[in-house]
């Protein structure tokens, strides 16, 4: 356990697909398609729309934050009492698409979207990191 581990709360996964952005956008935004690779859901590509992903282990509460068709999709992701944000970015590359997913617990620029839980966690972890650094 160290300071870096406490502060790095972001997961990025990227992959290139030999398909146009429009096709990937459909897989990211149509509920019956999302259910095929992620979880059952009542998603709608409308900013402010609240929805949930459901799995046998529980549910993830979400709200749509950003919709830019074939380019960007972001939603809040609240699971296990931790609020975070999932952002999808699609970039056309030749005949294919570069897909990037960032799942960020504590992004400064998203702080307003967190308000409660996320912000409290950020402060808590920052303080705790300081305590641990002193203890070492």
């Amino acid at each position: 356990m160290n300071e870096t581990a406490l502060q790095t709360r972001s997961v990025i996964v990227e992959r290139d697909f030999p398909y146009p952005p429009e096709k990937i956008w459909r897989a990211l935004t149509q509920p019956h398609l999302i259910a095929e690779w992620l979880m059952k859901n009542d998603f709608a590509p409308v900013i402010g729309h609240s929805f949930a992903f459901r799995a046998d282990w529980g549910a993830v509460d979400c709200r749509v934050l950003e919709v830019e068709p074939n380019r960007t999709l972001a939603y809040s992701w609240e699971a296990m009492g931790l609020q975070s944000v999932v952002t999808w970015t699609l970039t056309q590359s030749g005949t294919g698409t570069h897909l990037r997913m960032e799942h960020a617990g504590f992004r400064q620029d998203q702080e307003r979207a967190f308000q409660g839980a996320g912000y409290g966690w950020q402060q808590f972890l920052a303080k705790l990191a300081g305590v641990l650094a002193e203890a070492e």
Partner: protein
Amino acid sequence: MLAHSDMLFRTLGDPTRRAIFEHLCREGEQTVRALTARAGVSQPAVSKHLGVLRRAGLVLDRQDGRQTHYSARLAALAPLIEWTSQMTGFWHSRFDDLEDLLKRMDQ
């Protein structure tokens, strides 16, 4: 693992409990009385929060005469620290399933 993380996140999701835990991390072992003096809530409330923290494995209690001393168990934070690696595994496998779906959508 998910069930344990869930309890951990919920336990520390409460600001008062988080403050108590943070104080124990910072200051080391404390009595309920000393924690109450800082917490800004009643002693029964502090005791209740400590009970929740104890059940989540986040604090240890030690009886010394009539006083109970509490200390933080930093090792219990491991699942929280592992959040990033857990989520990385989760999203990689979701990307695999997305890739399979996209192949099927072609047909």
